């Protein structure tokens, strides 16, 4: 009996076991899924918590509900992988041997990596919204915010969902307008990038949307520390940005056990081949979802598309054949822009986000790189799709966008 061990029962791990269990014979393959707790979080939903649109129940469900028959879910801490011995030690002391390993333990905000961030102002005037706890604390802070400088800040790339800090600002702008206090609030976006986003056309469009809303952009700002007393961000080149309410996106790092196991890069992400998600170091180790170092957005859509490729390849791989599928870096994301509208971005390794139409029978077409109400409907629909379709490994009913002259392949 062979053993496939999957570490992490979040989006990537859950999609992986759902995609593979029906395709691997029960009497040949045992599948085990390990996570430290039994709470599956719909992370894109955190964005809607500070503004009171979503509550805890919208974003948390038991993991077991999404794990198929024939997969054992083990709740335990992960201590270390020994890739030579092909074993994983757990916090309880148990040791699991594997034939094939998938690391899907994601990436997490690490406010401890920026000096001063975890000072006395943490969760008072210094916030983050990439954890449920953080999003709930921010909701409370926003409720009592009376005006002043609201600063959204990105520490360093890569982060999960790179557009989320912009969405936070767009929603904050709409929120303060609704409360009739927009004039009392100065909105600022502070980023280490040289513009609002990384790719030129999207950066230009998104910068335009910031400008229309009167949101100031402070670029090329690499934070060195948070000055808790003066309530200011301080950069390595000694620029200062004062805030009354700071919402920072802390440095994102992979799990500590990845580094302890000698598998991580400088941010504890697992270095993998960008087309097969296989470790450069070990032929029977793969890393899926945010845990890897793919040069593309850390986003649920990238996870979904890459897990599909991985699942096809895995069957080749375990039968000793060359892996025939290659992930192309496809990502799409809805960017919530406030006031019931959203923008849709669609891109891959080769093609940056471009304008265009994105077909979807029934609801679409969505319009790429433009603000529309249909795109917003798509964003909200996504929560339902996530819980009911994506996690269960069913195909996403979203085709690839058409770009340029070449019609893109449609996901079956």
């Amino acid at each position, binding site marked *: 009996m062979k053993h496939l061990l999957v570490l992490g029962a979040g989006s990537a791990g859950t999609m992986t076991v759902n995609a593979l269990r029906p395709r691997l014979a029960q009497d040949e393959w045992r599948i085990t899924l390990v996570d430290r707790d039994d709470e599956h979080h719909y992370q894109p939903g955190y964005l809607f918590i500070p503004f009171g649109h979503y509550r805890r129940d919208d974003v948390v469900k038991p993991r077991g509900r999404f794990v198929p028959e024939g997969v054992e879910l083990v709740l335990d801490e992960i201590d270390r992988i020994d890739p030579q011995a092909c074993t994983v030690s757990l916090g309880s002391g148990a040791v699991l041997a594997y034939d094939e390993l998938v690391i899907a333990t994601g990436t997490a905000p690490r406010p401890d990596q920026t000096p001063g961030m975890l000072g006395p102002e943490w969760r008072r005037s210094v916030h983050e919204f990439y954890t449920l706890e953080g999003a709930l604390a921010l909701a409370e802070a926003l409720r009592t915010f009376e005006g002043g400088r609201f600063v959204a800040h990105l520490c360093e*790339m890569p982060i999960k969902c790179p557009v989320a800090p912009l969405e936070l600002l767009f929603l904050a702008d709409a929120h303060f307008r609704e409360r009739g206090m927009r004039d009392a609030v100065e909105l600022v976006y502070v980023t280490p990038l040289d513009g609002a*986003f990384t790719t030129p056309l999207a950066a230009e469009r998104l910068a335009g949307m910031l400008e229309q809303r009167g949101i100031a952009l402070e670029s*090329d700002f690499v934070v060195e520390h948070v000055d808790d007393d003066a309530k200011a961000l301080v950069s*390595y080149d000694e620029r200062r940005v004062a805030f009354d309410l700071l919402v920072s996106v802390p440095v994102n790092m992979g799990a500590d056990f990845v580094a302890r196991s000698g598998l991580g890069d*400088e941010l504890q992400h697992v270095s993998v081949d960008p087309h097969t998600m296989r470790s450069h170091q070990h032929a029977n180790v793969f890393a899926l979802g945010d845990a890897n170092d793919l040069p593309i957005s850390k986003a649920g859509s990238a996870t979904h598309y890459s897990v599909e490729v991985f699942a096809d390849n895995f069957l080749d791989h375990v039968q000793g054949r060359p892996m025939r599928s290659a992930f192309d870096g496809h990502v799409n994301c809805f960017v919530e822009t406030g006031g019931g509208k959203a923008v849709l971005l669609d*891109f891959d390794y080769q093609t940056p986000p471009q304008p265009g139409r994105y077909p979807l029978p029934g609801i679409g077409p969505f319009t790429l790189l433009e603000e529309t109400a249909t795109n917003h409907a798509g964003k909200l629909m996504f929560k339902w799709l996530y819980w009911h379709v994506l996690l269960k490994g069913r195909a996403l009913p979203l085709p690839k966008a058409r770009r340029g002259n070449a019609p893109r392949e449609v996901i079956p």
Partner: protein
Amino acid sequence: MLVTIAGRPVHVNEEGFLTDAGEWDEAVAAALAADIGLTLSDEHLAVIRFVRRDFAERGTSPTLRRVSSVGGFEIKRLFVLFPKKPAKKMSYVAGVPKPIGCV
């Protein structure tokens, strides 16, 4: 696009980044540096050599964090050596692609 830098033909993209790291040498580096207002010191060159070595090993240009944590150069110092946009400037002078912003 083919241009002449330090008296020799070199291929660059629309932003002036070398498209073939193999066409680089220290004379080209000095000319690229001068183009963005820098005079290269040994300290600059030590950073540039790390950037080139890391690019050769991994096929991607190192981030600021990587130059610091793997290369051992302090970020604060990198901002002094390559003011305002160190990650971009280091890659530019080292003749490697502009670092991917990881969209």
